[in-house]
């Protein structure tokens, strides 16, 4: 398949264009998505191509964006709701947690909810406490929601296509820092299946399990470690629900050491979950306790230096791996 290099933003945009062209029941709604083409320009060109009926600027009310998308999904459409950031989606958590996650179950499985809620999250842009949070743990914690965290343009496109075609509510978490990141994306239609992690760097000494922006940092760390003769395997989970523990366990059985890296807060995070499952299922294969490297348990500070201290950086990953491999 022929490849070209495009940004994460454009990859998401292509997925929206292609799915809207393929399926007339797909529509896009959110704040500033139509005329302004999205706060991060992910919805560029959609209004011009598909018109106001299918590309809707809504009043500012996240609860209603999520709720109306749920209603529209029950009503036979495939809405893709953009949240300007997942921080604002917190205002819609009643609709997401109490409703989107449970409607199929509460109807005894007789209702489907083909719905995507997507938007950026994470820190690194000096947007501070109420604008830099990572919410994947809160969502993954709740049964009934699929949770997707792409790290590359190809995955951004392929996973968004799968999300739109999925019959369950999918929480699609983009990383604010990644929109301009470039990568190879195959021409034409691609759909990346949920629940399949990717080994993005092969190694035999330590397994680094991560997702989203931290994948890029882990890759840099792995390259640096390579120079010291430490071979780290980097696993990008890609989707947190469903979670590909098979891939994680297979790698850990090979390396016997595991480090889980996440940007968000440590307490009850994805890293805690994965660490617990590794020790339950591969305890005998471990040569050292599973380590977690996470963001600091503080609201995200604004100042550039403080912000950099608050989340894992490449040297932190390198140091953790060295400690583990020692």
């Amino acid at each position, binding site marked *: 398949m022929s490849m070209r290099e495009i940004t994460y933003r454009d990859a998401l945009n292509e997925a929206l264009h292609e799915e809207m062209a393929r399926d007339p029941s797909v529509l896009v709604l959110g704040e500033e998505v139509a005329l302004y083409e999205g706060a991060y320009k992910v919805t560029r060109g959609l209004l011009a191509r598909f018109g106001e009926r299918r590309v809707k600027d809504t009043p*500012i*009310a996240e609860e209603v964006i999520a709720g109306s998308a749920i209603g529209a999904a029950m009503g036979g459409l495939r809405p893709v709701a953009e949240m300007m950031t997942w921080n604002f989606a917190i205002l819609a958590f009643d609709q997401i947690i109490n409703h989107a996650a449970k409607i199929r179950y509460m109807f005894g499985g007789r209702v489907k909810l083909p719905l995507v809620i997507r938007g950026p999250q994470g820190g690194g842009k000096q947007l*501070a*406490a109420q604008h830099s949070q990572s919410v994947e743990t809160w969502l993954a914690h709740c049964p009934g929601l699929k949770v997707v965290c792409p790290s590359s343009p190809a995955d951004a496109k392929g996973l968004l296509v799968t999300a739109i075609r999925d019959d369950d509510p999918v929480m699609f978490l983009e990383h604010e820092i990644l929109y301009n990141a470039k990568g190879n994306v195959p021409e034409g239609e691609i759909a990346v299946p949920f629940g399949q992690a990717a080994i993005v760097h092969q190694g035999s000494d330590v397994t680094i399990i991560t997702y989203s922006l931290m994948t890029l940092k882990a890759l840099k760390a792995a390259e640096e470690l390579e120079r010291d003769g430490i071979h780290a395997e980097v696993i990008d989970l890609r989707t947190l629900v469903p979670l590909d523990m098979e891939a994680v366990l297979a790698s850990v059985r090979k390396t016997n050491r595991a480090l889980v890296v996440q940007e968000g807060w440590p307490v009850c995070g994805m890293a805690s979950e994965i660490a617990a499952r590794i020790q339950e299922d591969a305890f005998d294969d471990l040569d050292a306790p599973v380590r977690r490297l996470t963001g600091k348990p*503080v609201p995200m500070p*604004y100042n550039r230096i*403080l912000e950099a201290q608050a989340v894992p950086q490449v040297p932190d990953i390198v140091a953790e791996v060295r400690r583990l491999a020692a």
Partner: protein
Amino acid sequence: MIPSASHPVPSGTAGSPSGPDGSPDSQVPLRVLSPDGGLEGEAPDLSPTEREALYRQMSRLRAFDNRMINLQRQGRIGFYGPATGQEATTVGSAFALEAGDWIFPALREAGALLVRGYPLRKMVAQLYGNRADDALGHQMPCHYTARELRFVSMSSCIANQLPQAVGAAWAARIRGDRTVVLGYIGDGGTSEGDFHAAMNFAGVFRTPCVILCQNNRWAISVPVEKQTAVREIARKAAAYGIPGLQVDGNDVLAVVAATRAAADRARCGGGPTFIEALTYRAGPHTTSDDPTRYRASEEAGRWPDPIPRYRAFLEASGAWDEERERGLQAELEGEIDAAIEEVEAEPAPDPASLIEGVFATPPALLRDQLEEVLRPRR
């Protein structure tokens, strides 16, 4: 300057609040000054010094905004959101309060903080987020906080300050003190559920507060007509049993009069009031925005500037002239220059401030994390 066509401000005066039952008639926004600054309504009772102070603060805010936008363009601060065009609304409304009243701002209420007497240097420090910043570099630019002045940090998420504002007002009622709370909201913010829930709470419990909507016609790229199907946001108040009125938000005397009347009423147990101030966001949403993408430059080019309008009024009574204007501009430039110079000389925040203020006393987990941050990397 002319008011924009879609905000016709009829001549005549008396903005009559629609009663709790909601009068069906269109309102006449309260106005004291004509668009060219002639006195046409009843001016609020203000001393000559107070009248001048209103002008000085509006000019100060304008000068501050202009300079901070320049600093942002030069990369010296990261982000800025100006209040250009809205000076009369923020300055006038904050001016009408008493010193002990609380202010819960929306997005563009730096002027209220200036009126409260917060040093401009501290505002610059907040924008830099360095060691001079009272908030320890924790908050995004323009999220000023001044506990001692009862000025709450704006929220990065919109509208959620209003439930807190009505709660603070409720506390004042329970404690039986004279405090009034002024909560601001943008026109776009009125679409959020929190706005409606807060208005309802205020109406049911008759909390001593004023909720002031700065209707600047835009919410980023969305014009107010696409935000709400009602022409006058003030009429929403009727649904909550709260008096609601429109005021010409580019007429600082009208804003003082309306806010003062509402605050006085609240202070005397008369309950909440909703004020819709009709104004205009003359600048970009923030420095991250380019409004030429979505609004006609012709519309933006003829925004009704509240500052020359009020200056014309002062000049007509001999209270202002060109010489005083030159003096004021020089003074403001000096004040802002000095503030920037002082703040730029400050170092980055102490790394330990990373964990300061999460809890009153940091639990062990946080102390461990701090040690890790402060430990040199191997």
